[in-house]
């Protein structure tokens, strides 16, 4: 189950250097085990995470995006985590409008000592994303994929738009039918 097969969720995890990243390091030092689906990208602060990055990750085939920051009140940079919270909250609403499940984007607080919490959050998030199924721009079956990774930034946008647009559109329609939007 720990093995990422072809259908296994692919996740990008933005971890802040001070809390979530240190917690992840401590999980390693403590030899805790969690699924290997999330590729960590270290940022100085969760407040550095641009909503555009989350969108880009989903466009590039991620099934979920995890952002780990310091607990409220503990941010190494005073208040970056609050700013992250506002941005990600807004982004999730926009994603919902676009027919993308907001549960694909998680923002969690993990302190530098909470290795067990990090392990649990990672395990749960992988399970949650797996339950949601492939992401809006999930990679096509192996072999037919290369343009995403090899093309330059502008070409990527076009490539994803053409290869993935049909699927999200119909899926969005499906979802819109049974979704009760809160606004």
């Amino acid at each position, binding site marked *: 189950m720990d093995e990422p097969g072809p259908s296994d969720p692919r996740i990008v995890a933005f971890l802040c250097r001070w809390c979530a990243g240190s917690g992840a390091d401590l999980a390693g030092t403590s030899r805790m085990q969690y699924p290997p689906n999330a590729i960590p990208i270290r940022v100085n602060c969760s*407040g550095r995470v641009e909503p555009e990055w989350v969108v880009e990750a989903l466009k590039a085939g991620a099934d979920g995006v995890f952002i780990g920051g310091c607990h409220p009140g503990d941010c190494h940079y005073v208040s970056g985590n609050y700013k992250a919270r506002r941005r990600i909250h807004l982004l999730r609403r926009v994603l919902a409008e676009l027919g993308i499940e907001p549960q694909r984007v998680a923002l969690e607080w993990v302190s530098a000592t909470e290795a067990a919490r990090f392990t649990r959050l990672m395990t749960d998030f992988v399970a949650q994303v797996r339950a949601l199924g492939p992401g809006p721009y999930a990679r096509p079956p192996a072999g037919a994929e290369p343009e995403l990774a090899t093309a330059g930034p502008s070409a990527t946008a076009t490539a994803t738009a053409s290869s993935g647009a049909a699927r999200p559109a119909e899926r969005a329609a499906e979802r819109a039918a049974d979704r009760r939007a809160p606004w």
Partner: protein
Amino acid sequence: MPSTRGARATRIGVFVCHCGKNIAATVDVERATEALTAQDGVVYGTHHEYLCSDPGQEILKRAIRDHHLTGVVVAACSPSMHEVTFRRAAAAADLNPYLLEIANIREQASWVHRGPGTTDKAIRIGRTMIEKVKGNHPLEALEVSHSSRCLVIGGGIAGIQAALDVADAGFEVLLVEKQPSIAGHMAQLSETFPTLDCSQCILTPKMVEVAHHPRIRLLAYSELESVSGYIGNYRVRIRRKPTYVDPDKCNLCGDCVQACPVRVPSEFELGLAERAAIYIPFPQAVPSSYTLDEASCLGLNPLRCDKCSRVCEVNAIDYDMREEILEEEVGAIVVATGFDLYPKEAMAEYGRGTIPDVIDGFEFERLLSASGPTRGEVRRPSDGRVPREIVFIQCSGSRDPELHLPHCSKICCMYTAKHALLYRHAVHDGTAYVFYIDVRAGGKDYEEFVNRAMEDERILYLRGKVAKVFQQGDKVMVWGVDTLTGRRVEVAADLVVLAQAMVPSDGTADAARALRLACSSEGFLKEAHPKLRPLEALTGGVFLAGAAQGPKDIPEAVAQASGAAVKAVGILAAPMLTHSPEVAEVDEALCSGCAICVPQCPYGAITPGTTARVNELLCESCGTCVAACPSGAMTLRNMSGTQVLSMIRSALAEIPQTVEA
């Protein structure tokens, strides 16, 4: 893979570390090296058993020179471990150190996963760092001047020691203490284990030294309000509460105490004695002056009561004294905020603090102390009788994850042995029982001390927990079990002493909040590395000393304080500090001057104008402004949006099954 970037001059080298078996056991290092070497822009790749070893670093240096590398990725342990090592090696080979990045494939891959997915993840992590290095620029560290004063928070034995050591090294110290006097809990102790030195007698000379040290400025009855700034240049706000007594005028005659009509429980005596509203915590207090406690005074209003002021011959009492806020610049901070005992009110099984003859360790210290409320005679609080049978309960609140706290408080085995021994010295025909889980007497001469208590003083050690303590008549009934004989034990005791768990003081939580320090789940301050950086907080320029960091005894607290002092002096004595050059930067061509970034910055590092301007020395590189900039004009050096977008794509791209090198 074709690409427009990197094809020209980018020559990246990839170095994969086995870390013995730490990485190589779960990551196929050969496949990882092969896959990473096949990445666009990578011209050289190798793997080695221990890259951090001298031969490993030699390989790195030689490859940088031989292959004219313009960037390096070391796939190894967390950057918090060896980033400095490898960047130094790169610099030695004339590669700008900021062109080297670490891919963390140990803590975040090889140690946390098993199976082939681990190698895939390691490759993906490596690829993100290759993309990052492609966008990195050579940078030079910024130099910053700094303050050469030190702030010590907490005036217990750890804070006193740290303050003295820093001051003796030639630097000014601000010592902030919440209580009216420095001394901390150590002044409350009667004797100290294992030598049975009188605690006050060894502490007070240090307190006097603090009082007279030309480079220590003592701010008693003061609290840290807020902290801003960064290593070397912290700006601290300290609130000085009014004592309503001018310490320069007060001659300690004590007439005011006689005149004061108020009596409240004394904090120093833990409620075993009373004090007036105007008081000195104990005779040797430093600063040596009285304090008028606003909360218990009849109202600081001469119309209601001015008895103390009327009898004060030197006119030291000033009801109009105001609270003061001091703003000071300091270069380093030592946090020595200490501990408290887990409240006995939390012990439902031991009477929840309602039985007068169930007391905690500190209260018993006061009963034993020659300066205490009973002048050193052991008398129980309820009726003042000398207890003939006394029960000591160890691990009260400690080592009890179900009901109380999971940690071992470390000092209780020793002080309980001391308590029982001192009790036997005071009451020769008394019987002392000690209930324990195990006796942990790790320390120089500690085991011998406990043996002396057990054998010479014939103290009854019963291995087992106490299930219940309750009042019956004038006795305190103790129901326990002796697990070595398997029998239930019932003792009709006169006095029960609980070795309550050590918990961080309230001041520790306040300091952690003000300084944004990480804490463990119990609230003890977290060190930067549990083994190798035990004196440092993760925040640069902040050091930890004493029991605020974890349970410890006096010699350990003193040793840690001296260590923290040396660490602080390391900063204070440096001619210049370096500051990371990986800070925010404005592209003036793109900036419209909208100033959205300005309120984002928690450090006030951005000045608005036609275009925003960043003060590089104030910038701490969080990048919050970058994420907020609507025109993409703000960027973080060597962590630009473009870099991260490439990192994201490389993290998600497929890994080719067959790799051509």
